[in-house]
């Protein structure tokens, strides 16, 4: 059973793969827009905290996306 963090990372990675044909940069932007539209605040803040959390394994694409998400989050 995936933990919630693993599932969020997996969901983000799956979205990235489906936007991959647009190129890395555009794919990340599209994924971020998608997360903005569909993820609830709890999921967003959890994702935003993952790049800095110790021992969390993320793919480069997901890490870049979550970091961009973290920086765009209002200071929670």
């Amino acid at each position, binding site marked *: *059973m*995936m933990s*919630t963090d693993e*599932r969020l990372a997996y*969901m983000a990675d*799956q*979205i990235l*793969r*489906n936007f*991959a*044909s*647009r190129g890395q940069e555009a794919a990340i932007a599209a994924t971020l827009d*998608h997360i903005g*539209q*569909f*993820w*609830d*605040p*709890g*999921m*967003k803040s959890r994702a935003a905290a993952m790049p800095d959390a110790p021992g969390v394994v993320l793919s480069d694409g997901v890490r870049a996306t979550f970091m961009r998400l973290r920086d765009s989050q209002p200071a929670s």
Partner: protein
Amino acid sequence: MTFTREKDFGTPEATGEAVSLTIDGQQVSVPAGTSIMRAAAMVETAIPKLCATDSLESFGSCRMCLVEIEGRKGYPASCTTPVASGMVVRTETDKLRKLRRGVMELYISDHPLDCLTCSANGDCELQDMAGAVGLRDVRFGFEGANHLEGCKDESNPYFTFDPAKCIVCSRCVRACDEVQGTLALTVDGRGFASKISASQGEGFLASECVSCGACVQACPTSALIENTVIEKGTPDRAVVTTCAYCGVGCTFRAEMRGEELVRMVPWKEGKANHGHSCVKGRFAWGYAQHRDRILNPMVRNSVDEPWREVSWDEAIVHVASEFRRIQNSYGTRAIGGITSSRCTNEETFLVQKLIRQGFGNNNVDTCARVCHSPTGYGLKTTFGTSAGTQDFDSVEQADVVLVIGANPTDGHPVFGSRLKKRLREGAKLIVIDPRRIDLVRSPHVEAAHHLPLRPGTNVALLTAMAHVIVTEGLVDETYVRERCDTEAYGEWAAFVSDPARSPEAIEELTGVPAADVCAAARLYATGGNGAIYYGLGVTEHSQGSSTVMAIANLAMATGNVGKPGAGVNPLRGQNNVQGSCDMGSFPHELPGYRHVSDSVARAQFEQDWGVTLDAEPGLRINNMLDAATDGTFKGIFIQGEDILQSDPNTTHVAAGLAAMECVVVQDLFLNETANYAHVFLPGSTFLEKDGTFTNAERRIQRVRKVMEPKNGYADWEVVQLVANAMGLGWTYTHPSQVMNEIARLTPTFAGVTYDVLDQRGSVQWPVNEAAPDGTPTMHIDHFVRGKGLFVVTDYVPTDERTGPRFPLLLTTGRILSQYNVGAQTRRTPNEAWHAEDRLEIHPHDAENRGIRDGDWVALRSRAGETTLRALITDRVAPGVVYTTFHHPDTQANVITTDFSDWATNCPEYKVTAVQVAPSNGPSDWQRRYRAQADQSRRIETAEPAE
């Protein structure tokens, strides 16, 4: 009060230009092609008839309807004689009366005379005609040869065939042909010995009959009659309402005796079904009075305790206080709810209002999540609105029909019949499905191309079809230039033209020969009006949304959107899944598909509801369950859904529910999800409430109360009770007020009122100033989003891979006689057709596992194991197995994984890597599950036993 039947004009409507003639001295003007009989009926002249009925082509066999025409010798039958201008017709002369009485004398010389004890007494056309012609004597006597000995066929659970009452008018045979398209009936023998026979005379149940009831409806006597009429007598009033089963949205006359439903007869004026029905809507309504129905609210503190019956007040107060308690201790977002696709628009609107206004968050989802949420995302992205583009009538002008990931003759039977009729008129059919569904090859219907692709490769195949269309110059250039975003088209065209996306390149992946893909693509692009119909076989994949967009791309590239006979048509599973999505049941959208972040839309609701709304999307079902296991989501209100049985990865769902502190379930029966519930609020059936359903063609239709709710309240009233217990102060007294609120707040519903629905029968949204009469075909001059958007859909393989441990691919589907999780149909005689889920497996795969037809087999995946009986068939390809999820004891969803569509998390039901092996009985999981379910269903009644 005599029972008023719908007027029968005798022959179908014609559509020629006006022709005027005289009938019995009266001037009549009717379209050319109209029969004299129908013309007469339109001026209230009822020419006697027996073999004619306006749902069937004229036949001319009973010879009761003879008339005289000036200048023409003989006595032509008015049913088979079209009007001609200047014709002078007499329908009543001495000679005609004598001939009609002569024919009637022959009929009654070979017919039982027990009218007064006959189940069709007062509702029999032979009886009416004997009266009309004034039959007073049967000079042949009653001792001649006759058909009075034949024994009754009571094999079908719903109707009885009594050959002695048959007048061999063949209306039943013709209905099974022209209306249903199964052709299961014939006349056996010739001359006087002619008698009606199902298939080879083996009785209706064993025959090819699919029990749609069209023959029973067409039969003028009691030869074919509903068993409920035999038991209860003829009905005395009729209320038009809408069926609560699939997304076709058939409308019926609920024919009643006082408060008791006698029979459901499809309504001729119904714009989705035009007087046709299937076994479920027509007969399987007995569940409404089934003894399993829970009629009193029940509460318990923990799921291990038995249920405790309580009063409505105590239950409602308990729900409200529990939810407030949870929010206070775990935060506003710790509770949420799930709307039902089987309840009315008004009820789903109120549940999402309860959540948004009452709970103060957007944690609302609906079962569309697990079926057509990718349709919402895909069509909104490409066309600008999350709904099908046509009406069902549009199929009558289709030249090429592409059915992908759907099995209409089982899942949407009445539309399946209309499609078969169009195919028999010459339209071509392409079927894309791993399984050889009936439409691929069955009497009078054969697909020009069947592309049996490996499950999960839809996007690759559709993109390959696009490759053929673009590279062979079959694109409708003008359409694309005028109607679509040409820049996006350019990118898409370049993408699909890449040789890596040619049919040859994906042949090995999909297992479909390139030549067939090319032929299918060329046929779709060049064969005239191209209409695509798709179902859960498209949406329930990890690339469900991409597949929907790939379909939209094909339709736009060939100019097949915005005109009758074409379009992209999602075959929505349930009766109001379209409506529940329209009503804003998704966590990211307000009613009318407006994102919660849309401040203008939000302001409208805030102003109307007097609260500020959360601008952030809420949790989806799977996210709610994750949050529950994380301890941040503690309470849920589930109306009319059984997520434990219908959602994937049952163990994951169970864990989520078990972690919550207050699970409230509102349903008709103690369903599987109720095993984990703390509060059970009894629900009401579609017969016990007013409201509206919206079918798969965006048609809003009225549901009308025909009996008082057995549980005391209509579902919308229960939601209001909860809302007011949470202080929201709702004051609705009738669902029409809820619809007025919906119309007020939702642009696409602006013109919808119950008065409009009563006048016009039904209307397809958008209904507003721009389209006062509704919108049969959408995107006519421009797409809702302006320019049609081509979206590049690259094939991304699912992570659910077969391997040595799980070498086969499981896909799932539904069967005609059972519905969704079977909660309703399992509580009706439909069990006669499908009493258990079966695993369809190819002979080779069965052989090398030593499995024989009917053997118990263990079905295992990474997520779990269950057992069911095997059904050996070559309908499925080698390497692919198939089953249904209608029966809880197989719990097929313990097998499905939690992989899902990348955009909407619609579960990937259609692709699960599994292994199949002989087994000797239920798996231990099933045993544990059965024990837990029985233990949780114990109920202590409130009153002490006398």
